[in-house]
């Protein structure tokens, strides 16, 4: 199908984008890479009155090293994220996003704002404790990713706010493992593990409305428990539902296995 008609505004600045969104009174939508929004428009699951294209806003596509971590402008494309060398965990996760043609267009800000709980970047953001930087009519604000994600495809973003950058702390050690039936599909289960400031953090995608942090499993991991115990604890902490792709029980079993895989390279030290 074809999208329903809309007005199109090519924003030249963050201020203009925010102003246009505010004027749209809730009927505006931000167009970044479009890899999730365009299908939604084509299927007419959404009919925004105004599309605010942010692709030409200068300065939003920068990758800036910050305290060992990295600050990604909202317009950093997945293809570039996959090849950058500042943050290996982000590079690995980006390689799992869709297909090459999707990664050419898809953006960091778009993925975070879309907040699909089965998408790679939200899971990595939750695992690292990333900070989302947001511009609105009242100025800038920032929020920790796990607070920013409010539910499936839901965030705390107001109708007239725009994600401008996401700051990902460095991981001293990390692992990423994803299970999908076909290459490029959204993961049925995906796991990001990251040691940040000496503490391991885990985030699991595909098993809830937002990326899930299994806090008991994290505690066990930081206390030096074996990987099997950590994996079992993580599986016990998630409550995945049945859907057309997999049963909840299956997703729980895969959670244990993919926590194991994400941590496998660090098995000995994590268990020491």
């Amino acid at each position, binding site marked *: *199908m*074809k999208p329903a008609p809309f007005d199109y505004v090519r924003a030249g600045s963050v201020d203009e984008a925010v102003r246009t969104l505010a004027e749209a009174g809730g009927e505006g939508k931000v167009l970044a890479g*479009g*890899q999730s929004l365009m299908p939604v428009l084509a299927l007419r699951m959404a009919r925004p009155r105004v599309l605010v*294209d942010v692709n030409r806003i200068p300065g939003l596509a920068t990758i800036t090293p910050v305290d060992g971590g990295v600050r990604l402008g909202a317009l950093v494309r997945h293809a570039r994220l996959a090849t950058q060398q500042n943050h290996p965990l982000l590079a690995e996760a980006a390689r799992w996003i869709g297909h090459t043609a*999707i990664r050419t*267009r898809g953006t960091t800000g778009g993925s975070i704002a879309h907040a699909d709980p089965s998408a790679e970047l939200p899971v990595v953001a939750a695992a690292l404790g990333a900070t989302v930087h947001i511009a609105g009519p009242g100025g800038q604000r920032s929020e920790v990713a796990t607070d920013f994600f409010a539910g499936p495809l839901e965030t705390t973003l107001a109708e007239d706010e725009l994600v401008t950058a996401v700051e990902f702390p460095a991981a001293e050690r990390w692992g990423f493992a994803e299970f999908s039936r076909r290459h*490029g599909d959204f993961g049925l289960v995906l796991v990001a593990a990251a040691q940040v400031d000496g503490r391991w953090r885990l985030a699991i995608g595909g098993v809830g409305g937002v990326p899930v942090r299994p806090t008991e499993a994290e505690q066990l991991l930081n206390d030096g428990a074996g990987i099997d115990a950590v994996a079992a604890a993580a599986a016990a902490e998630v409550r995945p539902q049945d859907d057309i792709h997999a049963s909840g029980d299956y997703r729980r079993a895969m959670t244990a296995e993919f926590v194991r895989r994400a941590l496998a390279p660090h098995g000995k030290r994590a268990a020491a």
Partner: protein
Amino acid sequence: MRAEFTVNGTRHEIDVEPRRTLADALREDLGLTGTHLGCEHGVCGACTVLVDGGPVRACLMLAVQADGCSVSTVEGLAGDDGTLHPLQEAFCTHHGLQCGFCTPGMLMTAVDLLDREPAPDRERIREELSGNICRCTGYTGIVDAVEAAARELNP
């Protein structure tokens, strides 16, 4: 709304509704029907074209977003005298197509792959083509074709 971009080196200026996708603009406004539309929501890969050198789903990009860009489509692969591109030749030789509907997207995806990686192995070829759906061939002929074209282009 006006948009100006080049397609296979030729400059075009069109005046379209903002909701016009790049794929529809190529087909309907410019008459370049080599770019095929299958699913129209980014799943099948049939409409894959190159924009500023990178592969994109032409159904997931608005024509007005291509303003100022350089677009390459399947029509630009063969030489002016009709000589087929080595990938097109290889698709013929290795039975890389049957009905041909997915072929333009397959070709443009393969062009991009061989541009980035001169000698991908079969595993890599399959991985890179995994975003393009073919309902005829079972893919084996397509993988054979891309592998053969890689050898031809980068002996």
